[in-house]
């Protein structure tokens, strides 16, 4: 495996560990969103290249855990869309995740920069 591949693999591993928090945060900003707008919102923040095959199963797991709720909305224009929004448990999870990330990133920055 080349050095470039190792770097890309490391970034995908980091993202895998925090993507649920990024999705919860995006949902808290958007109030409610469907899969494609969530992906666009994450891409605007630099998380581009996230596919539908990653985001929808993640949303399904978050819904199973009671962190988000969803509803199908049928409109006159475009296909029916499933909108997601945060629950109270989801907000609490996001707050806890933010605290955990700050602690972790501070420690990691110290470890890297001395």
């Amino acid at each position, binding site marked *: 495996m080349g050095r470039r591949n190792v770097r890309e693999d490391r970034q995908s591993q980091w993202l895998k560990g925090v993507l649920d928090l990024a999705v919860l945060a995006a949902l808290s900003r958007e109030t409610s969103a469907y899969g*494609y707008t969530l992906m666009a919102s994450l891409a605007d923040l630099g998380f581009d290249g996230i*596919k539908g*095959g990653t985001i929808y199963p993640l949303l399904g797991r978050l819904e199973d855990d009671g962190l988000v709720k969803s509803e199908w909305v*049928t409109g006159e224009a475009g*296909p029916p869309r*499933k909108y997601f929004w945060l629950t109270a448990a989801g907000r609490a999870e996001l707050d806890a995740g933010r605290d955990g990330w700050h602690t972790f990133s501070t420690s990691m920055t110290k470890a890297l920069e001395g």
Partner: protein
Amino acid sequence: MSTSQWHYSRALAEQLRINGVSESKVREIVAQVESHVGSTGEDPVDAFGQPVAYAAQWQPLSPLWWVRRVGVAGVVSVGVFCVVMAVVKGGPWTAAVTIDRSDVVTLATLFVLLAILPWTSELWLSRRRGANLGESHPPSDWPVRIASSAVAILGVTAFAWLSDGSESTILQVTRWHLVVVGLIGMSLMFRAPAHPGDPARPVDAPWAPHRTWRTRLRRLLP
């Protein structure tokens, strides 16, 4: 090569059912894929990966689940065997029907046809199709079908040869008992999870109102 949404939906629904995902969840997942592809115009394989891989993201196929399904199909084949024996052997309903070793060949044949072949070679072919969707030259199913049928025929023939001439009684049971046990075994067909070769796209959309059996029946009547 691009993949049509319809083909992708069918293949994905099939793989989700094989993995044991409930039908209501299958409807949700397929509808989400169709909604995403309808909104973005993306190729479904590019957006979600091959149906086998995407279905595994929701629920991978567990060996225990597979064993359970083979077991259920085995019970169904025993049910069919009992009904066939009750019909073929005839006689009064209260008379005892003798099941001897040669009848076990019939049971073995039913077991191979209803349980072993569907859940081995057919399952493997279905997963291969669901992992190569959109390819311009997909591998042919026929060599595997012919080879697995040949192995099954050889196996049953060998079993028949081993029990040839032996008509020693294994069991004596009244005819009506056979029918009751057979019908109970066969009824599992309606409760059993979908056959591996079930690529039907879900009919009902998840946002549609729930249709009860009464409303379904009423629609069928003039």
